[in-house]
């Protein structure tokens, strides 16, 4: 899925898929996430945290996963509403997940705060990775109704 | 006297004193003795009965939503709202009306002893009427309670974040009570927001009123200080009690980079110096 070319944003209902191939795509994703959070009435602080987390993870997908795509979807529960993001790449995967999740550890010259920082900024964090197959990171932020 | 409601009205008007005694006896048996003493039950009952009789005489409707019942609704609403403040339960509040049923039925039966059919009809109508009045008091009670809760929540939130300007460029945040993470987040946001609004260079966080500091609270404080520094303002912590100093060191929390002062007054002097002002004691003191 990550090798196809996504020329335009694909939207289905409350779900949009954005390509992550260039730095500009990261900016577009941030804007999309911000718009969804604003529409659902998240506070400025919560918006900022989630957009920052999205920025970190989008960079990882781009830099370490060789590009991929981001899925942005709105979620609704009985008593809460939220935004869920999935970052999917078909890159090399992460060999040592525990190490990758450590503050300050980096394999590529960054600050090593991407994964651990995004986890702190979001309400939910989940990562599936397999060496040679790729990585999917899912984060969500919830707001009580 | 063929109209049902006027018959009820006639009974109430004629036997008002007896009904009042019967009603009060019923009320007092249903309420806790200490509670019934705290309020003027007799006064409220004596006000309600004639109003009810008058309403029944003037309107043929027994639907309490109708305009003719506005005075009765008004009085019941006032009583119910007072009950909320006095700490009564919804059941105790509704019983004010329900306790009137028994004496009324008794006198209706007596008045219509020759016409049992009409008596049962009258009682059924009166029963529905009092049920509706009782439910109305519960409804008012509920709404009054919700309003109180809402107002208290608002007050709590405002109380919990009292950012005050002590001097030009100097803010103070006197924290009182236990800090949990959601409250700390509110405190943090309002302090930082106030820094932007006032252009303050320095903020004093006074924790004299904070009973305990655990690792999490200490971390929250440090985060607030770090965030303020990123924006260009410094923070001083004051009012650290000996036990809290012990806890902080035992927990291994590093406060080395933070300016701490024993009292708010000491912190204020430091803050003034940083903000470019100073205080001088006048002669003769």
């Amino acid at each position, binding site marked *: 899925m990550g090798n196809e070319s996504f020329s335009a944003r694909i939207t289905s209902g409350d779900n949009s898929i954005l390509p992550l191939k260039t730095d500009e795509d990261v900016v577009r994703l941030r804007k999309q996430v*911000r718009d969804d959070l604003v529409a659902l009435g998240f506070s400025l602080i919560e*918006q900022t945290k989630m957009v*920052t987390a999205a920025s*970190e993870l989008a*960079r990882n997908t781009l830099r370490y996963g060789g590009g991929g795509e981001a899925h942005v979807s709105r979620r609704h529960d009985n008593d809460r509403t939220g935004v869920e993001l999935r970052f999917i790449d078909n890159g090399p995967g992460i060999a040592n997940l525990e190490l990758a999740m450590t503050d300050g550890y980096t394999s590529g010259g960054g600050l090593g705060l991407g994964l651990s920082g995004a986890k702190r900024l979001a309400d939910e964090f989940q990562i599936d990775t397999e060496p040679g197959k790729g990585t999917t990171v899912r984060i969500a932020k919830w707001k009580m109704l | 006297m063929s109209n049902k409601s006027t018959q009820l009205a006639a009974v109430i008007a004629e036997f008002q004193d007896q009904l009042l005694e019967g009603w009060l006896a019923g009320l007092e048996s249903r309420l806790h003795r200490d509670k019934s003493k705290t309020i003027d039950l007799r006064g409220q009952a004596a006000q309600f009965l004639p109003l009810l009789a008058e309403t029944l005489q003037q309107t043929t409707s027994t639907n309490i939503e109708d305009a003719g019942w506005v005075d009765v609704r008004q009085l019941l609403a006032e009583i119910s709202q007072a009950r909320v403040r006095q700490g009564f339960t919804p059941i105790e509040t509704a019983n004010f009306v329900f306790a009137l049923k028994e004496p009324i039925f008794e006198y209706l039966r007596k008045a219509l002893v020759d016409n049992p059919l009409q008596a049962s009809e009258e009682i059924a109508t009166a029963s529905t009427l009092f049920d509706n009045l009782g439910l109305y008091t519960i409804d008012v009670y509920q709404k009054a309670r919700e309003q109180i809760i809402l107002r208290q929540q608002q007050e709590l939130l405002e109380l919990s974040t009292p950012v005050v300007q002590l001097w030009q460029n100097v803010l103070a945040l006197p924290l009182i009570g236990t800090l949990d993470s959601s409250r700390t987040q509110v405190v943090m946001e309002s302090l930082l927001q106030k820094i932007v609004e006032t252009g303050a260079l320095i903020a004093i966080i006074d924790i004299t009123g904070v009973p305990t500091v655990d690792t999490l609270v200490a971390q929250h404080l440090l985060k607030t200080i770090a965030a*303020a520094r*990123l*924006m260009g303002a410094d923070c001083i912590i004051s009012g650290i009690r000996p036990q809290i100093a012990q806890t902080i060191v035992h927990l291994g929390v590093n406060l080395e980079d933070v300016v701490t002062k024993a009292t708010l007054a000491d912190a204020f002097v430091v803050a003034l110096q940083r903000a470019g002002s100073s205080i001088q004691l006048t002669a003769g003191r």
Partner: protein
Amino acid sequence: MERIPILRMGRLLLVTIQVDMHDRLAMALQEDLTNRIVKDRANGVLIDISALDIVDSFIGRMISDTAAMAKILDAKTVLVGMQPAVAITLVELGLTLEGVSTALNVELGMKMLEQPG
């Protein structure tokens, strides 16, 4: 290529970031600033981020690296105008920009740069 403009006022360099930052733009700004410090013989750099609605770890690192580079080139850097929500998020992310001087706004930042030392 898109670049963030750098203004010169006496021996100070002024940057107001008003576009959505991305990594390439951040790296270009860092390069431009260090070049201009030498070329303009600047002794102070003021970076205004009041229009930025997020600062992630990459931009944060660019800022602290730039401040460190400027210091080696004998120029002082002041970062001004960080929004409260951005500051809270940066701290939560684990970034405190140690070694970077900060001020609430451009005016206070200029004052800091004008002070000797």
